[in-house]
């Protein structure tokens, strides 16, 4: 069976949600992965959207985080202040899914500006949204980022959301209660933080990807696990459900 790099990435992210209770979902790949997981690997997974929908069960992928179907299918809909204060902030949510325009070796994320300086940027990105507090408060964070030298950079131009800061002990020093990035899923493979150094380390390659391609797509000297695994290929079932979901949502 053939599949795209994006499909492998999405399936890998969906599999990572097995055994989790709740997931704070942004729009785009995170939403696709979380909704795929709910259909396949984690039927009881509670999807929490920052628009206030708790336990949403959309049949289609929402284009925005506030689509009507989210409210209609949710167990509860609360106000935006409440979703951040009562639900995200105390660390009730297992997993936060985030993406970014830039990410560094410690999983710090930039979604604010690229190039120039803050007041006069080369490229103005959308900004923080819910990300800083998702990165701070969820018990664990899963990052989904397409890998390239443009995105995997030595130093992010702006720290919008904190991963491990400058390294071990920084999250504790900053008073961030969640564990930080536990997994970075790209279109090439999977990275995990080294338990000692916190540095993101390549632990798995996606099927058909070779190591050189990953190091070439990384803007720093990439650490590689001694025993490099390979992501199991997406199953026919996983692909069928994913494609159905995407197809239904584009209508």
């Amino acid at each position, binding site marked *: 069976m053939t599949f795209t790099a994006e499909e492998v990435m999405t399936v890998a992210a969906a599999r990572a949600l097995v055994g989790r209770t709740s997931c704070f979902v942004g729009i785009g790949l995170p939403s696709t992965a979380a909704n795929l997981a709910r259909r396949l690997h984690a039927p009881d997974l509670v999807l929490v959207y920052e628009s206030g929908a708790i336990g949403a069960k959309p049949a289609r992928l929402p284009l925005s985080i506030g689509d009507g179907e989210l409210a209609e299918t949710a167990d509860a*809909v609360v106000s935006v202040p409440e979703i951040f204060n009562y639900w995200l902030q105390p660390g009730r949510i297992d997993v936060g899914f985030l993406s970014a325009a830039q990410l560094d070796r410690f999983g710090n994320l930039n979604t604010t500006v690229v190039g120039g300086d803050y007041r006069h940027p080369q490229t103005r990105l959308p900004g923080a949204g819910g990300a*800083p507090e998702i990165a701070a408060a969820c018990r664990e964070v899963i990052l989904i980022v397409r890998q390239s030298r443009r995105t995997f950079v030595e130093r992010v131009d702006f720290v919008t959301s904190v991963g491990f800061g400058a390294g071990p002990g920084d999250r504790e020093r900053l008073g961030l209660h969640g564990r930080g990035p536990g997994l970075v899923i790209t279109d090439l493979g999977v990275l995990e933080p080294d338990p000692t150094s916190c540095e993101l380390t390549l632990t798995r390659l996606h099927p058909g990807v070779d190591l050189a391609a990953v190091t070439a797509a990384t803007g720093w000297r990439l650490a590689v696990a001694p025993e490099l695994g390979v992501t199991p290929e997406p199953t026919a079932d996983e692909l069928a459900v994913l494609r159905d979901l995407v197809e239904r949502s584009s209508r």
Partner: protein
Amino acid sequence: MAELVGLAEGIAALVHDGDTIALEGFTHLIPVAAGQEIIRQGRRDLTLARMTPDIVYDQMIGAGCARRLVFAWGGNPGVGSLHRLRDAVEHGWPAPLELEEHSHAGMANRYAAGASGLPFAVLRGYTGTDLVRHTTTLSTVTCPFTGEVLAAVPALNPDVAVIHAQRADRRGNVQLWGITGVQKEAVLAAKRSLVTVEEVVDALDRRPGAIVLPWWVVTAIAVTPGGARPSYAQGYYDRDNRYYRDWDAISRDRDSFTGWLDRHVVGVR
């Protein structure tokens, strides 16, 4: 309190040059028609506050209404950039745009503090981010019981809050349901408020998930069917996803934006 007005009349009476205004609606019930009326009336030097500036603020910024943006996430949801916002920030067109940048949690708490009559709100947020270095409306406060240091954000009390709701009754009680976002807080935090509604009904029957803003906290109501398009009004119409996708091409280029603005906003009425 809760006077029934025409949209143009309401904007003329309540929104003045130099005001801080908040058009709120989290994806749902975005008061787009009101924003376009502000463009038509040529308001200038506005401070635009909004958690998620999207196409309505892109249009207002491109039309030259704004001097300053107070926000957390400025994008075209599910599509990409806001090109007019970017052009203003990156190239100062049509005018430079000052940014006061927060996170969603920070903005939500700023409105909540405003609605509560408190000068500031406390949250766990921002720590370790570069927002701390650039956003002046950000500080810290120490818990008097535990000594823990937390983030503090100042209350946001706009001169005017503008929201769209499904309906109001003849007394001016406003009802909205579905994703209700931060609209209650925005209205309660503001000095004045304008609510556009799909319709006015004799009586509001109770609805699951609905909130009601009583007549005595709303300044004016303007019946504006479709006033949230291309966003949606649950129970009335769906989101026009195509408009959002098309906006990307329309807004990418100054000329095509200006032409669109003349045809679809300024020339309308």
